[in-house]
């Protein structure tokens, strides 16, 4: 493991120029956030030489901004730190719970949601919750900032839309309005320290009348990438998000899933359970929305 270099730039410009210099010299550079994926992968997958560019010293990757219209969450903030933020916890309980599912207390001292997204695993726990909350990636490029909705970020197993020397700064999330609630549930055979076999996130907004005006549903670990299931959201809109509507949305999720059979579960299993989790997460999101009127 001695086979790497390490730099920790303190500004976005410096980071971009470090990355550019490395590429120009034909050197492999890799962004390091918490390292909870990268360091494990260096042992198990590939320990070839590289320059680690640590982005934890940047302001932009570390700040949380709660504004009137939107919430900004830095990409490199450890899950443990996010979960100490009481305001975020009330605004986005489902997203924070998804970050709180990662690994264990020790892992959460480092693991970031930016790293979780950029690792681009189909099973990354925070990704469906980010999608359900309509989060937008804020990406630093040499030409300035560009933005991409999270549902378009991951392009395949372990692959994403970052090109060249781009890196992720953080997420813009529309500030949840009154009557909004979100939830994320994953299925694992154990109680912790495991990888999602299936995941589902739901965010709903209910009016004073208890009728849903807006809903987004996202599913994880049932396709090469986490999926936004538009039709499942549509099935909840104009309903009280009751059992019947949730069952429809659940069926749509099962149908939209494209799971595989592997050591963690079969096609039939994942297809069925993704619906179950959609229904259960939807009910939690609805109850949160109702208590948030």
């Amino acid at each position, binding site marked *: 493991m001695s086979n790497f270099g390490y730099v920790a730039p303190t500004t976005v410009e410096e980071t971009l120029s470090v990355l550019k210099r490395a590429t120009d010299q034909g050197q492999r550079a890799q962004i390091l956030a918490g390292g909870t994926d990268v360091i494990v992968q260096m042992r198990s997958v590939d320990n070839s030489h590289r320059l680690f560019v640590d982005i934890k010293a940047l302001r932009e990757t570390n700040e949380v901004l709660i504004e009137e219209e939107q919430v900004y969450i830095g990409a490199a903030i450890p899950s443990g730190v996010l979960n100490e933020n009481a305001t975020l916890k009330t605004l986005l309980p489902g997203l924070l719970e998804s970050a709180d599912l990662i690994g264990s207390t020790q892992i959460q001292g480092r693991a970031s949601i930016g790293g979780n997204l950029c690792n681009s695993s189909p099973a990354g726990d925070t990704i469906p919750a980010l999608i359900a909350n309509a989060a937008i990636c804020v990406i630093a490029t040499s030409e300035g900032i560009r933005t991409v909705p999270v549902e378009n970020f991951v392009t395949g197993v372990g692959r994403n839309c970052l090109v060249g020397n781009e890196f992720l700064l953080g997420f813009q999330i529309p500030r949840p309005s009154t009557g909004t609630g979100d939830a994320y549930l994953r299925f694992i*055979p154990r109680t912790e320290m*495991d990888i999602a076999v299936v995941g589902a996130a739901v965010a709903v907004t209910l009016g004073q009348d208890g009728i849903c005006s807006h809903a987004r549903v996202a599913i994880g670990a049932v396709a090469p990438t986490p999926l936004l299931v538009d039709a499942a959201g549509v099935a909840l809109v104009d309903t009280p998000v009751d059992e019947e509507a949730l069952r429809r949305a659940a069926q749509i999720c099962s149908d939209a899933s494209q799971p595989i059979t592997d*050591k963690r579960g079969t096609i*039939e299993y994942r297809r069925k*359970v993704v619906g*179950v989790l959609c229904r259960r997460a939807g009910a939690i999101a609805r109850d949160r929305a109702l208590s948030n009127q």
Partner: protein
Amino acid sequence: MADAANYKAIGTRPIRPDGIEKVTGRANFGADLNLPDMLHGKVLRSPHAHARIKRIDLSKALAVDGVYAAVSSADFPQEVTSSLSINILARDKALYHGHAIAAVAARTPRIAEEAIELIEVEYEVLAPVLSLDEAMQENATLVNEHLRTNDEESAPPSNIASTQKFERGDVQKGFDEADVIVEEAFRVPSAHQGYIEPHACVATSNPGGRVTIWCTTQGPFEVRSATAGVLAKTVSDIKVIPSEIGGGFGGKTVVYLEPVAVRLSELTGKPVKMVMNREEVFRATGPASATLCKIKVGATKDGRITAAQAWLAYEAGAFPGSPVGPGAMSVFAPYDLENFLVEGYDVLVNKPKVAAYRAPGAPQSMHAMECAIDELAQRLDMDPIDLRLKNAAKEGTVAPYGPKFPPIGLVKCLEAAKRHPNYATKPEEGVGRGVAVGFWFNIGMQSSAEVCVAEDGAVSIMEGSPDIGGSRASMCLMAAETLGVPYETINAHVGDTESTGFCNLTGGSRTTFATGLAVVKACEDVIAQCKARAALTWELDVDQVEWQDGRAVPKPGVNIDVDPLSLAEIAKTMSRTGGPLLGRASLNAQGAGACFSVNWTDVIIDRETGKVDVKAFTAVQDAGRAIHPAYVEGQMQGGAVQGLGWALNEEYIYDGNGVVENASFLDYRVPVASDMPMIDCEIIEVPNPSHPYGVRGVGETPIVAPLAATSNAVRDVLGFRINDLPLSPPNVLAAIDAAE
């Protein structure tokens, strides 16, 4: 000996002598030793589950800067053709994915890793045999073309290495008398022992041919003989020094790396260290046999079992030697049966050679039997404990495997279970409960112990049993009780193969029983010497002195006015009374008492995801005498958790080519702490007459009953039975869906 109620040390729960070293990270485990100028060895493993090896070319690896030696099986004595030797490095065929093919020694682990990639191996890939069903078919592909069932020369080659059969009475007549008959087949998958510490060793060979091995093992003397065997040396060429051990459960009773490290050291003249990573541990060591067990059992309306029949097939891996024998001997052990028939098959497949795992063979066969008994209880509408009580083996019952049982604790355990508040309280709505009985024979075998007394009266024990579960504390407690001195003044040490007398491995739940017996006898030797020293001091005959509460005193009626002499006082003057006090004993212990248990599991099931959650688990077990009750409970709890893991999620997942897909702790799912409820323990004590304090082994029985107890609990919730393990969410959900 004092009777139980008067014990001063036995039955207390002091901290263990090795505790401080372990919790402060000072204890040295297998991989912790580094020697000057040491090289690092790494093994190249087969990428195929079954392949003929046409050619191995080590030259490119040898050419790497920093590589000192490379070996294949050709560098080992060819006249040695034991399974062990062929398992350590493949000969003409690679027999499983991960089978060791070659090894190198290099300056750093990294160079060694890179160098093994340069070894060229030409394989002719063969179809692998991956299941019992496949392997037992008539025209099956052969794992070993030279193997004939039961070594019968006239028989055609087969994957069935051996068969066994034993019976009593007339099963047909018994089944004819039955009112109810249950007949079912059960599959249990391979499970790994899952010890946290991977295999590791350092070996060094001096120019005179003397070899020293430091390693993590359950049996340094067995490492010595196994390594000597593979290398065609004699045992006295080799000294083995055991490290602290991070779990074994039977998996560290065999050798994988040691002979290779010795050979590499011989070739380089330098010490060689070899350490497996977790993936290698999963691919090439352990596991327990995957099995198919068919059971038929019949009973009369009032619950008397009239006949029982078992057909047991055990995967042996690539070499003969599955524990189908003990599986067959234990399957009916808890019951007093007039008529039974057991058939067993030891079957080769292209998978790693199986190794012992806690009560080897019993969890699988007894899972089948205990599920069948539960089914019988359902059909007879009887309480599952009452049904077992009605048929339970007791003192005097002739065990299905031959001997007449001396005092055993099964009935007491069943009665205690019935009385237990956890059993008396009926499960809540939605919670299912399952009961099962566990059993293990236990063994005695050879042990030695030396007990020395220092000038200040402190006692040190030297023995040869690697301490996996707190045995040093138990040795100290037995010594404290025997000598009559405080526990705190005693220390116990695990010696190497040249610093203590021969000792068989820590296994078969024998250590506290057999090595304990040696320690007690060595302490009695010290007492005899102390009495002689006191007699000398007092100018009495030795038979006028006795040992009482740690002191020599004149026997009642001996007319002399002297103060008693304590062990410390005798030790202080020992140079003047004959020199150092050193007691010793060595023995081949007989009469290891069998150990029975009763377990019950309470579960809930999420019917939409198939997830089984264990809400409560209770273990009742006969310990004979619990020397250190906390460590007996530790065995009961640890075994329960391993059994629950096997029941719920642990399994080897193979692809179609015989490659294990889940060779990591991420996907080979042992339970994590938060998965488990508190494991409640009740220790029953039915003393073993063959041990001065009544000890029975307790280490293996605990893993046996949780499998069936959990299956039976799942049946209780669902109303139908899932015969095969694991009861993992996909399997349970599929069964629920199929039932709907």
